[in-house]
């Protein structure tokens, strides 16, 4: 039925099968839509956030997907600027994943702020000293860049390609992609860093506060590093998942290996710096605030095991796996390494968001805990539904994987 839209030389499932595949994702979107409508109409009382948990599940999700989406700019940087040719086979997928993550995060933020209609005040009444202003500027611009990177791919759809001006436009965009890759890299570096800075500058919250270099707290650099360490892993995971679902080889192994190696090396550097940062925090910031290390972990469910898991289990171990060539070459180990790497970063963002707020700073204040409502889950999971849907549509109708034809010759 939709065969005219499907790129030439590749095989896709029947429209019926595709329709059934989209159903669960549409259901998630519906759930998210209802939740969003409730939050917009009735207010944020639909969530379980409180004056203690001003930031909650959505912000954790936001920070996590933005970090995982870092594969887009970093792969772009490696492909167009460093010139790693083998990554050309995976760059489209990385850009789409990045676009999904960023647009999802921005949409979620739109619900998360109490006055969505006034969102533009960040640009109009900007406070240049606020890390959040920096984040907003960079994310908005970067989303534009991602869209520009995505457009040439959309224009390669067989039907759109027939329109000559559009085809020429797409080809021209391709030609200048390096400029956008460079812009994207610059913007992303800054906003990944500012997201870390967001917490690091809160000097009245000793759990998150970090001293640093010039105006940037340490977390600024740690967030950049952790994002570019986990982003490529996430790109690998998504592509591997696409391969598993479609039962096809879509990307040559060389691209995976390059990304995994880079991911592992960066994770290794990150973990070393993270350990140094943690020690500096334990022996510097913590005693200066009159606290002992264990004071942060003595109450509630957020124990010191979080730190052990984050640095040890989901930091050091995946770094070793991804840095060992033989482990990287084995499919199982590669996926385990990438999965652990991504889990580590999600845990890190969770800790910075939730634990920072849960730990009372005033000695006579009480420990609070928080559980999200179904509306909060709805909006968060809708982003996943949206991601699967957009990726599936892109895969079906656009030449996302340039080597797909070569790796899977269609047998008549």
């Amino acid at each position, binding site marked *: 039925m939709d065969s005219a839209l499907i790129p030439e030389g590749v095989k896709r499932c029947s429209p019926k099968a595709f329709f059934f595949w989209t159903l669960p994702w549409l259901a998630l979107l519906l759930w998210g839509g209802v939740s969003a409508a409730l939050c917009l109409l009735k207010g944020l009382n639909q969530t379980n956030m409180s004056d203690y948990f001003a930031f909650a599940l959505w912000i954790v999700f936001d920070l996590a997907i933005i970090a995982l989406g870092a594969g887009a700019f970093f792969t772009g940087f490696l492909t167009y600027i460093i010139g790693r040719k083998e990554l050309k086979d995976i760059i489209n997928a990385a850009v789409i994943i990045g676009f999904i993550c960023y647009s999802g995060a921005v949409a979620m933020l739109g619900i998360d702020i109490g*006055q969505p209609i*006034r969102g533009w005040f960040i640009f109009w009444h900007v*406070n240049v000293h606020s890390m959040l202003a920096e984040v907003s500027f960079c994310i908005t611009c970067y989303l534009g860049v991602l869209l520009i990177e995505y457009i040439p791919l959309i224009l390669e759809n067989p039907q759109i390609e027939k329109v000559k001006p559009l085809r020429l436009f797409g080809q021209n965009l391709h030609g200048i992609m390096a400029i956008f890759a460079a812009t994207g890299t610059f913007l992303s570096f800054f906003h990944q860093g500012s997201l870390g800075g967001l917490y690091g500058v809160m000097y009245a*919250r000793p759990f998150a506060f970090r001293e640093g270099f010039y105006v940037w707290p340490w977390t600024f650099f740690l967030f950049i590093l952790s994002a570019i360490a986990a982003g490529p892993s996430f790109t690998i995971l998504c592509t591997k998942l696409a391969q598993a679902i479609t039962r096809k080889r879509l990307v040559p192994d060389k691209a995976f290996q390059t990304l995994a190696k880079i991911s592992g090396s960066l994770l290794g550097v990150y973990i070393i710096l993270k350990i140094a940062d943690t020690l500096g925090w334990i022996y510097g910031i913590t005693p200066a*605030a*009159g606290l002992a290390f264990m004071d942060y972990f003595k109450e509630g469910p957020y124990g010191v095991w979080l730190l052990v898991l984050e640095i040890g289990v989901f930091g050091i171990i995946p770094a070793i796996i991804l840095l060992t060539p033989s482990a990287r070459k084995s499919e199982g180990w590669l996926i385990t390494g990438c999965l652990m790497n991504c889990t580590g970063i999600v845990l890190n963002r969770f800790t910075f968001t939730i634990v920072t707020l849960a730990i009372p700073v005033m000695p006579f204040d009480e420990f609070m805990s928080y559980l999200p409502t179904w509306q909060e889950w709805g909006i968060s999971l809708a982003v996943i539904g949206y991601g699967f849907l957009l990726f599936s549509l892109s895969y079906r109708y656009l030449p996302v994987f340039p080597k797909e034809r070569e790796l899977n010759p269609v047998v008549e």
Partner: protein
Amino acid sequence: MVIDLDKCTGCGTCMVACSAENNVSVRPDESDPQRRLTWMRLYKVTNGKPFPETEVSYFPRPCMQCDHHTPCVSVCPATATEMDYETGIVSQIYTRCIGCRYCMAACPYHARVFNWWDGYFPKSKGMTRYLSPEVSPRMRGVVEKCTFCHHRLMRARTKAYAEDRRELEEGEYITACTEACPAQAITFGDLNNPDHQVANLIKSPYAFRLLEKLGTEPKVYYLSSKDWVRKLGDNFLPGQFEPVTKVKMG
């Protein structure tokens, strides 16, 4: 502002006065303390000892009007909260706040509250008639906080200017909580003016500020003669806290 914790009885009048003065809306069900709108919060603290050695004290906590690199002001992306360097008051521009709540995350005193619900002033209880025209009621989705009854300062200033004065007398401008406190536990004035009572009170060895070590430099001081209460004012590592041993009499 100086709050004498030895005098505070925990009656909550300051909270009520604050809410009434500043058009703080209520909720039909106020049983959710984590989302309740209160600018002035009263904490009950105890020395943790079993009966009969148990001692109790109350901590009224307005916004501290932090002076140094004000945590909430420095983070607000939309400049919706600002420090007025002339008056020292940290004010909130409600119509500019986008409700991102970053300021709440940055304030360690939980002095900021978010409007989770639409403002509610029940007509049947006559509350609408009490709404003050001097303070704008806040809409859902913004953050609000204590502003040391900024409008009272404006009122006092207008009056002084009308009388051709440029300086305010001590006591001409005080906050609603100061005025309402039946135990006179709260003293309000200009900390920079040596003639004002507050400037003297903070020289007491019993004076302290909440979370001094963090360096937010609050403009609210507390007084307490009890070591354990002062100890609760900040986080102290073992051996760091210095009890007051010698107090000059007279």
